[in-house]
């Protein structure tokens, strides 16, 4: 065997270094991918927990999630749904650690989005055995006050910031009044009654029957349909739960009532329902071969409304429209997974519209909104 020459030794040195560098870089990439454990954030999976996600900031062996500046499904659906979806992803996946939720960027908010946020925080709090700590004293004081009035701190059983003492702050400053968040695991008519009484203390007499019908049917639907036995998703804590809130905005004279559940969503439960064949027939009759989530919600609303016999269940969803039909103007909006169905009534006509979003809601939101013109625009009967 020949002795290595100086030239060959230099050649080997250079290539060994290159080989070492290449192997080390490959190892680092592999390690980063294993740490991420998820594909890149993409349309297929928008809630990937990764440093590439713009709402997430690494902090203390975990992440901080920034809430958007406008927390509203109407004005800022994409960012709001994205942030709330990420929050759910953290609470559902023990492998990831969410250190904190940053409220400091919030400048505007809407009641329905706040309800969903409250529900996700309630879920997070339950998942960590009520060890969630509030640093609300560091929030924007106006935002902290609004959340205090909505009942967020009571819902989570946390003390409010010391400066939150005025229960009518939102009315004085923003011309809005809120009904505090409530939650339950049964179709509790007494809570629907309390909601109506609280709303009437703000806006005057309301048409109580359709409001009661819609709210209690929504609660009952959560019990029966949100977590079908065939689905592998089970409710956190073992109880099917809903969250309910309401509010009145004097700037637009609009009354809003919202109810939210964290179930498997309407489009996913329909294949397990007694109406599934009729829904498929309805979709094909309308020439809708695309079984998008929005089309599925519309079909569920229409099939339940027009069905005669054949099944004693599934008549509750169409009742959601009754409160709007009895009002002078308003809308009911149902958002479930990627689909949104809106039924709008104005002075001239009623119409239904559909929308498909890029970011899903991981549950079902039902929002009623009616215009209160002169506080007596809603008549009984």
């Amino acid at each position, binding site marked *: 065997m020949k002795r290595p020459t100086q030239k060959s030794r230099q050649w080997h040195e250079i290539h060994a270094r290159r080989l070492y560098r290449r192997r080390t870089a490959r190892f680092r990439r592999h390690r980063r991918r294993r740490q991420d454990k998820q594909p890149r954030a993409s349309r297929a999976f928008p809630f990937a927990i990764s440093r590439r996600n713009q709402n997430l900031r690494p902090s203390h062996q975990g992440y901080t999630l920034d809430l958007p500046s406008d927390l509203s499904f109407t004005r800022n659906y994409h960012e709001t749904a994205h942030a709330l979806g990420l929050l759910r992803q953290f609470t559902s996946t023990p492998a990831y650690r969410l250190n904190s939720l940053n409220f400091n960027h919030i400048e505007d908010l809407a009641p329905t989005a706040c309800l969903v946020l409250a529900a996700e925080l309630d879920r997070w709090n339950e998942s960590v055995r009520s060890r969630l700590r509030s640093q609300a004293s560091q929030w924007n004081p106006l935002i902290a006050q609004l959340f205090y009035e909505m009942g967020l701190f009571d819902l989570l059983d946390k003390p409010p910031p010391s400066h939150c003492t005025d229960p009518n702050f939102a009315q004085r400053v923003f011309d809005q009044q809120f009904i505090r968040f409530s939650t339950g695991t*049964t*179709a*509790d*008519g*007494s809570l*629907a*009654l309390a909601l*109506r009484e609280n709303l009437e203390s703000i806006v005057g007499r309301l048409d*109580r*029957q*359709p*409001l*009661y*019908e819609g709210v*209690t*049917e929504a*609660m*009952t639907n959560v*019990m*029966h349909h949100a977590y079908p036995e065939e689905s592998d998703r089970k409710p956190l804590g073992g109880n099917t739960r809903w969250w309910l809130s309401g509010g009145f905005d004097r700037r637009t004279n609009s009354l809003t009532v919202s109810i939210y559940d964290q179930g498997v969503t309407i489009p996913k439960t329909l294949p397990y329902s007694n109406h599934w064949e009729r829904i498929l027939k309805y979709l094909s009759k309308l020439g809708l071969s695309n079984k998008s989530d929005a089309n599925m919600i519309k079909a569920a609303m229409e099939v339940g409304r027009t069905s*005669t*016999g*054949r*099944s*004693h*269940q599934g*008549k*509750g969803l169409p*009742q959601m429209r009754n409160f709007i039909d009895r009002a002078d103007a308003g809308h009911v909006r149902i958002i479930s997974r990627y689909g949104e169905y809106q039924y709008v009534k104005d002075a001239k006509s009623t119409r239904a519209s559909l929308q498909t979003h890029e970011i899903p809601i991981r549950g079902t939101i039902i929002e009623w909104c009616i215009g209160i013109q002169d506080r007596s625009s809603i008549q*009984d*009967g």
Partner: protein
Amino acid sequence: MVKSTEIDIMRDYSSTPAGRFPADGPYNGQDFREKLLVPALQSGVVTVRIDGVEGYGSSFLEEAFGGLVRNNSFSESRLRKLLTVEYDDSSFRPYENLIWKHISEATIDSPSR
């Protein structure tokens, strides 16, 4: 002699009925049917007063009245003779129509009745 019974849902049961089964809540359709409606129908003519409550979801009405056909073997014709729905508040008229609609639809679902 045929016994006549009046059931006032607001007075005798609840002002906030909701839900279908006992798991849904305390004042549900199945409970109302089995505790009040069926015993009264088995002993004679029944008048059900439906006004005064907050409202009725379709689940409650369907289980309470449609369930008479499905679960308790009452036929629609027999219920037409035994059951009367009353109210003073005209805003509750749609509920009377719904009650008979649920009974008819339950009969369609159960052709043997």
